């Protein structure tokens, strides 16, 4: 195997230095009867063979690149400039550890600081942490953070229109705590926020794509002593008002569509930001600027007394490893696109989605259910959406998510997503195929 350099002669020399007669002797503390004779696994392959085996497996998949792709639902087929993977895959970034030794980690630390800065502007928050595992776990941790920050209040309001997998993750994370969850429909400003409410969670946009303003609900929450937690689409924030500017106390987002490929669901990027008032209750690593003894600027991990390696059972979260490299991809992505590029991506997605929705709305038998949306909208279909997905699949079109995948009682609903990757021709083909499928 090419990954172990030690030769037999060196091994013997090293055993001599240790004072052991054999490698076996080094494992003397392990009970003899429990030692493995031989693992029931195949023999190792050469690099050539392993590479071929992996490529053959990958070839079994049907990808977004090979179809007209209109499926989003929490994971988005998006443009990633070539510089993003080219730079993020440099060995000095890729094979470095968490930057606990700042003098030899300034590259990673400065990149995190730059990400925190750009993400904070995008989300309208004063501070963003160095990442969570994904959008769903970021939101679950935000729920716990808000609940703990409002001691004595046990109620958390969740939107009915929330990604079902996110709702599941929140339930798992909160299973051991006596939090009373209630779901509200529609406009968050009409949610039943009362003096027992610790936080209202707002999905901006909702799972269906629907966008409700945050401001009125945030004002009511604050008036009644509750926190306003917003989960958002960071690409949408390039052209629509940021959650922070509308009064959010904690913001989370799935950052995948900012520079990270689909990758069958991961690694993605959990984003979380908050206000100055709440920063010491926020989980996750945070990088701060400081100086060395000669006055040179440098960056360090800071506010660590929130974290598990210092506070152990009293830490605000158990998170340790995060999504460093995904964060770096997003950092480079944002720096490359800049304000103009990101706004162009967002506006093109918006325009294409609205063009598609207006064409679908004209089709007999179909109805667009979302009133106000960014790049994803819900369509009422004339026959079961799974049948439409199957029929269009045969034509090389993935028309969206049949909602029955998550909700058995919603067979005739299709969640359609249009991004900057979709051309007008693809949209026109989708519309024509939907029309044909309704017959």
């Amino acid at each position, binding site marked *: *195997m*090419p990954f*172990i350099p030690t030769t037999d002669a060196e091994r013997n020399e*090293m055993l001599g230095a240790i004072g052991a007669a054999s*490698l076996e002797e*080094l*494992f003397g503390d392990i009970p003899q009867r*429990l030692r493995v004779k*031989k*693992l029931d*696994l195949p*023999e*190792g392959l050469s690099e050539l063979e392993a590479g071929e085996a*992996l*490529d053959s497996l990958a070839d*079994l*998949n049907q990808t977004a690149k090979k179809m007209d792709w209109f*499926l989003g639902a929490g994971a988005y087929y998006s443009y990633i400039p070539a510089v993003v993977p080219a730079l993020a895959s440099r*060995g000095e970034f890729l*094979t*470095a*550890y968490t930057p606990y030794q700042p*003098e030899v980690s300034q*590259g990673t630390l400065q*990149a995190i600081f730059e990400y*925190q800065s750009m993400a904070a*502007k995008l989300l309208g928050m004063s501070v*963003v942490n160095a990442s969570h595992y994904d959008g769903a*776990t970021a939101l679950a941790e935000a729920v716990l953070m808000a609940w703990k920050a409002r001691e004595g209040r046990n109620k958390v309001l969740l939107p009915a229109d929330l990604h079902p*997998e996110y709702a*599941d*993750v929140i339930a*798992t994370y909160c*299973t051991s705590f006596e939090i009373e969850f209630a779901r509200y429909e529609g406009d968050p400003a009409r949610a039943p926020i009362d003096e027992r409410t610790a936080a209202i969670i707002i999905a901006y946009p909702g799972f269906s794509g629907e966008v409700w303003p945050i401001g009125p609900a945030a004002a009511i929450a604050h008036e009644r002593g509750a926190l306003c937690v917003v989960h958002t689409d960071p690409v949408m924030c390039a052209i629509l008002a940021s959650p922070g500017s509308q009064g959010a106390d904690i913001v989370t987002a799935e950052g995948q569509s900012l520079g990270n*490929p*689909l990758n*069958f669901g*991961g690694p993605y990027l959990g984003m979380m930001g908050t206000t100055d008032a709440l920063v010491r209750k926020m989980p996750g690593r945070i990088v*701060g*600027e*400081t*100086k060395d*003894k000669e006055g040179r600027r*440098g*960056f*360090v991990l*800071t506010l660590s007394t929130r974290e598990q390696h210092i506070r152990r059972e009293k830490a605000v979260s*158990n*998170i340790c*490893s995060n*999504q460093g*490299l995904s964060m770096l991809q997003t950092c480079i992505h944002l*720096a*490359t696109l*800049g304000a103009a590029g990101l*706004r162009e*991506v967002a506006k093109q997605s918006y*325009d294409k989605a609205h*063009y598609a929705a207006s064409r679908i709305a004209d089709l007999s038998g179909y109805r667009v259910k979302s009133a106000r949306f960014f790049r994803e909208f819900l369509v009422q279909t004339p026959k079961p959406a799974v049948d439409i997905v199957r029929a269009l699949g045969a034509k090389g079109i*993935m028309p969206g998510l049949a909602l029955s995948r998550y909700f058995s009682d919603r067979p005739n609903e299709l969640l359609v997503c249009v991004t900057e990757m979709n051309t007008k021709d693809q949209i026109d083909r989708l519309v024509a195929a939907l029309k044909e499928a309704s017959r």
Partner: protein
Amino acid sequence: MNAINMRDEPLVYELSRAGRVGCSLPKADVPSFELPADLARADLDLPELDELTVVRHFTRLSQKNYSIDTEFYPLGSCTMKYNPKINEAAAANPGWKYLHPLAEEAQAQGALKLMFKLQRSLCEIGGFEAASLQPAAGAHGELSGVLMIRAALVDKGERDRRKMLIPDSAHGTNPASCTMAGFSTQTIPSGPDGNIDMAALRAALDDSVAGIMITNPNTLGLFERNIVEICDLVHRAGGYVYGDGANMNALTGVFKPGSSGIDVMHFNLHKTFSTPHGGGGPGAGMVAAGAALAPYLPGPIASEDAGKYRLAMPAKSIGRVKSFYGNFGVLVRAYTYLLMTGADGLRRVAENAVLNANYLKAKLSDVYPVPHARRCMHEFVARGNIAEGVHTLDIAKRLIDYGFHPPTVYFPLIVQEALMIEPTETESKETLDLFIEAMRSIAAEAGSQPELLHEAPHRAPVARLDEVMAARCPILCYRG
């Protein structure tokens, strides 16, 4: 000698010039639609850079890092082994990169097959029944595991068992994960041999015990010699045993944790199975369980039915701990590595990891005292306070000048001035010898020129940074 980039590098915002663009997009091919007037955003403050500026900026930043690709990184408990390049090549295949997580199962057979095979391989290596690849990191696997224990106790009507036992050598994530799962923790001291104090364990085992979390080998690099008896005692007291697999690199192909009675364990694929740490992640903390806890695994997980692969939720699952199925790109890398190492290779990994650690210990323990005089496994813990006024931090920072990443320092907490050294199996004897030489030179300097150590590092982009100021007056984003 290191070749780190010493030049100051401006922030992206400081490099920005109004009007520069770093990307090009196709022209709009559909009509423009009005944004909602009440929500339209007026401005967005992101930097404006051309592509070459972006390339130079991030290339220069990368050169300010130590990394496995450039330096020896003997970071204890982190298993900084070489990350094979074939892993990256395999994971970059468009068949993975552009695969949507909600594609139909028939469209994702390659991915589901890979997940299924990886689950089975890791169960064989660990001695478990079933596994879930969903947890994204070690701590995430811990949270999953302790939630599984909680769910099983609730099912048995033993909701009141709320106490989790944790050895004093454990990682901080263990107690923090317990808190997130609603457990309280009780610390179990280590005995003079560095293993769990059995008398203290027996005394703690009452009817409020939910279980114990054990890292084996522990963070002193020592195998828990009483592991079978520990599992037995905890089971008889009505609790479950959680295994923290952070140190599995010592054991692959030699010992299956499941065979000693561990009920549930996470593996760090970014340690043992060679996937890159990425400056802090993404990792993968897949969790595997024996018969008692397998039905509670988080999901969905991959299953096979007559050659077709599908996703399924375990019968009594604790639910999802993450959207979709885990850090899939990391799983591709780990599976590639497993295919190349195979059964024999995995054993050689453990053998050489343990050999390298014992070799370093043998060559250094006369100058850096090792408090537990036993054979170590894949790592060992020494003391850095080797001369008057010299501390572990000084040794660590001086190593930077010699072109080595410092070991893990001040952990585990039970050894004062701890230096925790893990070489891994991928380092050559020449590298180990150079490291030994550097450590011995530093020990000599500690006696003769301690100020050299106190002022170190001398060859890094910055000197020691003021961390107190960073925490007291936090500057957490650019304020230009």
